[in-house]
């Protein structure tokens, strides 16, 4: 249908022409003026306390204590159940967040600007691995780390990022793909490249060498530090692709731990949802599938721009880490995703696949026609509040989201 083909050409053009740059680190209340006290932005499509999963509830109670809205976790839970907090999706406030993905007023946010279109997107700073708030952790260790990020690390990072004049991300991701990252479950290379890019500025703006050492060690010891930067980058790239009449390209995929939601360009800001699925993967020692929470997080914005599970071929090591099979099979995931995307990204290529461009621009028509749902690489949270990460795996987006979106898109172009 011509209107759809033309719309998708425009969507693909905007997607590829994005120029994301890490430009700042700003307190959430400043980065997102509409974010008010006692408002909690969360991962995924809209959800209320009653239907939140364990890790999301654990994070909500933890963040309420962190923000000083509740004296302890028990009081926070009671307040949440009584409606003391207002919940909204990150995506409605120019933001994204991994796993539980909570964003509240006092957190420092990474700011990525898409310099082609002038829009900005935000994401909190990655806390590290294991027992952390994004996986539902909420004890003193978790909250103290968040306070350090807010009071010491975030401000130092802000000064350093500004001093660099901005860190271009498109070229960094291109390099990361050649170094074995897929930008969702493997960010080893890009985290290192980020450290390399920011270290001189961090050092030259530091006033205390002990604090500098702690900041450098925090980035250097976290293989997933770049994930949150990649997510803000993804949001900044996809937002200008929204609202192209007739376009069947997916502009957002996300999960709140209970439901999976997608948006398409041609259907604006409507969420098409279905129950989330359970990842299949590998578990840390002492944990099994019985401990796992279903799929959760905004991090699927990474797959939405053609990375993560779509770029598995760039990262054979991650195939083993997420239990997706032999390293030699990693390329099959990427080839399969090529069947449901508009085209290849010529600037993000995979050397081991003869420089195949990453499959880019998920077309809901192709998803429904082929029955091939997007592949997502993901971390796995414990199903109970307060525990944290228990493994990593692969999960598919629920087909029902795409079928619902297809029907709405058809209606928008007067096809029945």
């Amino acid at each position: 249908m011509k209107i759809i083909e033309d719309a998708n050409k425009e969507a693909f053009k905007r997607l590829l022409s994005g120029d994301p740059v890490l430009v700042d680190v700003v307190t959430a209340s400043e980065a997102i003026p509409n974010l008010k006290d006692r408002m909690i932005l969360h991962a995924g499509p809209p959800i209320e306390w009653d239907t939140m999963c364990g890790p999301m509830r654990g994070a909500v109670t933890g963040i309420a204590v962190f923000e000083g809205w509740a004296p302890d976790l028990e009081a926070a839970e009671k307040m949440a159940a009584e409606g003391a907090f207002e919940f909204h999706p990150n995506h409605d406030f120019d933001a994204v967040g991994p796993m539980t993905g909570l964003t509240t007023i006092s957190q420092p946010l990474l700011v990525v600007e898409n310099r082609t279109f002038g829009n900005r997107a935000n994401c909190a700073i990655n806390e590290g691995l294991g027992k952390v708030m994004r996986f539902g952790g909420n004890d003193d260790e978790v909250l103290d780390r968040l306070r350090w990020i807010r009071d010491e690390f975030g401000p130092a990072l802000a000064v350093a990022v500004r001093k660099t004049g901005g860190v271009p991300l498109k070229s960094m991701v291109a390099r990361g793909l050649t170094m074995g990252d897929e930008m969702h479950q493997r960010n080893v290379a890009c985290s290192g490249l980020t450290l390399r890019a920011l270290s001189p500025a961090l050092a030259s703006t530091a006033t205390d060498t002990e604090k500098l050492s702690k900041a450098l060690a925090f980035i250097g010891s976290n293989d997933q530090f770049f994930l949150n930067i990649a997510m803000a980058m993804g949001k900044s790239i996809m937002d200008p692709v929204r609202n192209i009449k007739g376009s069947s390209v997916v502009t957002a995929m996300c999960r709140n731990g209970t439901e999976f939601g997608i948006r398409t360009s041609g259907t604006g800001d409507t969420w098409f949802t279905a129950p989330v699925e359970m990842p299949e993967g590998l578990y840390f020692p002492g944990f099994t599938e019985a401990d796992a929470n279903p799929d959760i997080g905004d991090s699927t914005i990474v797959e939405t721009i053609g990375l993560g599970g779509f770029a598995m071929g760039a990262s054979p090591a991650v195939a083993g880490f997420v239990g997706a099979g032999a390293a030699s099979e990693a390329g099959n995931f990427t080839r399969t995703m090529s069947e449901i995307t508009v085209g290849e990204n010529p600037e993000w290529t995979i050397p081991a696949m003869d420089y195949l461009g990453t499959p880019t621009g998920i077309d809901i028509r192709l998803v429904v026609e082929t029955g091939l749902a997007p592949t997502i690489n993901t971390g796995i949270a414990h199903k109970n509040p307060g525990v944290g990460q228990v493994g990593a795996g692969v999960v598919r987006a629920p087909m029902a989201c795409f079928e619902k979106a297809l029907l709405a898109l058809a209606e928008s172009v007067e096809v029945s």
Partner: protein
Amino acid sequence: MSEFGINDLLEKPLKVINVGLEGFAKELNQQGVDVVQLDWAPPAGGDPKLADILSKLGS
């Protein structure tokens, strides 16, 4: 008329690509014939309403 008839084909070892019901491939496989089963499913998983809309929207 082709010089290469069906009888010539059957006199040589067969290599088969099966499109459709997997049972045909299994039968041949049990008889020692090399078979590749094409990974195929009807559009939209066979849902007639979605398939109709897809045909109108093009993909």
